[in-house]
């Protein structure tokens, strides 16, 4: 596996702290004053030139948020967040409207270049496309929406997508250009009142991606959003809304990184997916927010609400996630299986090292008849981290013939970490078939020694064994992401043994 070799090379190039995305971009930025109030909500709405209904929506969410309590049921421990001590809006100093990458601050472009994000497709954006016949099938095109702090800085391949009828744009733009779609769907999967962080997001979200795939259209390329938090003390509250109309298909990728900082940063996103009859949405995440240093200082608090609604019959939503970053992860990408014969999938790899705390899993809510769901979760705990799988599978009274298969496997590396599995299973009708399997194992000294005796270094051996452990899930990722994820897994486990 050349990837293993390459990983080790990379790890060696990285200094003491292995987080390789920890740099900061020095650019002028415009920030709202610290703290949260109706004024700030209005300020954000105004900055985005939003219509009145949008502002009302936000204000209602804000007022509700004031009455809500932070949830405490997750198995995570952190000091109380002072929500008045954060910035809720930060944007790179604007250069009016940006029509090509040339007009984007070169420092930002450099940032994405360093991160290896293909905004480099500058040429593509400018209309210089590969000639017919020169298309390299191995390098499939990916359209990218890059979100820097609170704003989307670039979206590539817009024109080509438009030809297919696909709308892919920053949500702030969609609110202005496609208000009827946004009004119809925003908050229809995750209501503004859903939970503390989702409500906060509804009040202050500043940008994110919007996707609409019209009936019968197979989106011609992978869509991707890349999130980057740069500013100090800034929360990132992005909002993503993806709608797959009847019989359509879209695959969407999401990546995240942040600079290394001593203080904690807050990320509270909301993602809503809607799949109509016979539509399919595949949503993949490689989350690599800064996890904090080896003493547990700093890192991102990742409190995210992701939910998909299989609204139509025979619709399908599939979540795949590779979680290696964040000091705290609180995240349960879920599926509401409303349409008859709809299906939901959740494939997850959650890796924790150092002092990271992960509480993640999924909810499969079976409402329609003959709905099916599948959950494959692989948790890997190393260092002094705590890794919890928390999942809910439920079948309603009317969800006759509902089926679920769940497999949760945990792997422990070392003896100072913990893995926990908390499944909730509810069947309200007697025809539901639910299967649950769970295993916990320790990476065995004998296996490591066997690999090392064959010439692998300790790090290579751990990387190999772990990559084998998560293989079922890696296979679910789009090719480009799978390779990257494989490397990421080895990097995040650097120094976890011995």
């Amino acid at each position, binding site marked *: 596996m050349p990837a293993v070799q390459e990983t080790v090379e990379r790890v060696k190039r990285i200094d003491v702290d292995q987080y390789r995305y920890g740099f900061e971009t020095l650019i002028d930025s415009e920030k709202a004053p610290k703290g949260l109030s109706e004024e700030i909500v209005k300020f954000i709405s105004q900055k985005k030139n939003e219509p009145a209904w949008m502002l009302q929506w936000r204000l209602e969410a804000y007022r509700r948020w004031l009455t809500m309590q932070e949830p405490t049921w997750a198995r995570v421990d952190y000091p109380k967040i002072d929500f008045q001590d954060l910035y809720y809006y930060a944007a790179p100093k604007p250069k009016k409207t940006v029509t090509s990458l040339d007009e984007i601050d070169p420092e930002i472009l450099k940032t994405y270049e360093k991160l290896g994000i293909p905004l480099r497709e500058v040429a593509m954006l400018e209309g210089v496309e590969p000639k017919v016949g020169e298309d390299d099938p191995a390098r499939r095109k990916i359209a990218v929406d890059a979100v820097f702090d609170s704003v989307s800085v670039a979206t590539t391949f817009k024109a080509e997508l438009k030809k297919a009828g696909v709308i892919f744009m920053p949500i702030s733009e969609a609110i202005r250009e496609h208000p009827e779609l946004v009004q119809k769907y925003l908050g229809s999967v995750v209501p503004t009142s859903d939970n503390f962080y989702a409500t906060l997001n509804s009040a202050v979200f500043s940008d994110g991606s919007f996707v609409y795939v019209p009936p019968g259209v197979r989106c011609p390329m992978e869509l991707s959003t890349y999130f980057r938090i740069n500013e100090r003390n800034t929360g990132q509250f992005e909002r993503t809304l993806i709608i797959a109309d009847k019989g359509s298909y879209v695959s969407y990728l999401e990546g995240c990184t942040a600079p290394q900082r001593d203080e904690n940063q807050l990320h509270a996103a909301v993602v809503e997916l809607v799949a109509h009859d016979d539509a399919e949405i595949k949503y993949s995440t490689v989350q690599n927010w800064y996890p904090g240093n080896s003493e547990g200082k700093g890192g991102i608090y990742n409190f995210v609400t992701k939910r998909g609604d299989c609204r139509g019959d025979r619709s399908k939503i599939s979540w795949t996630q590779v979680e290696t970053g964040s000091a705290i992860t609180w995240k349960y990408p879920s599926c509401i299986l409303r349409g008859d014969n709809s299906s939901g999938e959740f494939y997850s790899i959650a890796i924790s090292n150092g002092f990271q705390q992960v509480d993640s899993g999924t909810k499969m809510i079976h409402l329609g008849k003959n709905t099916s769901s599948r959950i494959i979760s692989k948790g890997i705990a190393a260092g002094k981290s705590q890794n919890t799988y928390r999942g809910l599978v439920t079948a309603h009274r009317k969800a006759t013939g509902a089926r679920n298969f769940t497999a949760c496997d945990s792997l422990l590396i070392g003896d100072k970490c913990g893995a926990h599995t908390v499944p909730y299973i509810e069947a309200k009708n007697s025809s539901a078939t639910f299967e649950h399997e769970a295993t916990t194992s320790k990476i065995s000294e004998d296996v490591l*020694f066997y*690999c090392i005796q064959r010439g692998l270094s300790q790090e*290579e051996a751990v990387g190999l064994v772990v*990559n084998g*452990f998560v293989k079922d899930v890696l296979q679910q990722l789009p090719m480009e992401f799978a390779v990257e994820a494989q490397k990421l897994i080895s990097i995040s486990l650097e120094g976890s043994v011995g």
Partner: protein
Amino acid sequence: MALLEVKDLKVRVEEREILHGLTLTVNEGEVHAIMGPNGSGKSTLSHVIAGKPGYEVTDGQILFKGEDLLEMSPDERAAKGVFLAFQYPVEIPGVATMTFLRTALNAQRKARGESEYSTPDFLKKVREVSKSLNIPQDMLKRGVNVGFSGGEKKRNEVLQMALFEPSLCILDEMDSGLDIDALRIAADGVNALRSPKRAMVVITHYQRLLNYIVPDVVHVMSKGRVVKSGGKELALELEASGYAQFEDAA
């Protein structure tokens, strides 16, 4: 020329001394058999040579090609040419055997400053060797040793030996869990690797294995020491008279 020199080796595991001053010299091209009852320290010796953690060397030394082996990490030893065929090869789910072979081989080559194998060269080599060992190609696509029979696991060990071309092969109880046919295939594989530059140390309880892999020298171990050495006829003698006589000698 001496390939492996173990001199007055004393080894402890958790405060208990297992080897009490073991001396052994293996020259290039020779096949040595180490026999002895359970608990005599045979496996400990193989583990210490390979560098398995958990053993404390309190005295003595091990030289390999004149270099101090105990100073090297286990992966360095592997790259230098020390190969241990495990009594119980481990399973590594999700890692295809082919991937494992290639990763290991290239790691060793890299450590020696050699270029990595190209894919076609590597595949060709694996195919050749696996064919001679009667290893079907689809076995190489499965997870390392996952769902392999006892015989397949041992053949997989011999396959690796053939690929990595080590100068010292230690075979730890290779006959355990094998029926006669499986044993013959594995032993044929081993015999094909005998060469004037390569030495082998064959650890076994029973004389049976030595009918297939015929040793140049036989050592009898008891209570952490080599108590008697001789030619291949020593093995037959043991088979007839048992180990009890040596327990008294030690």
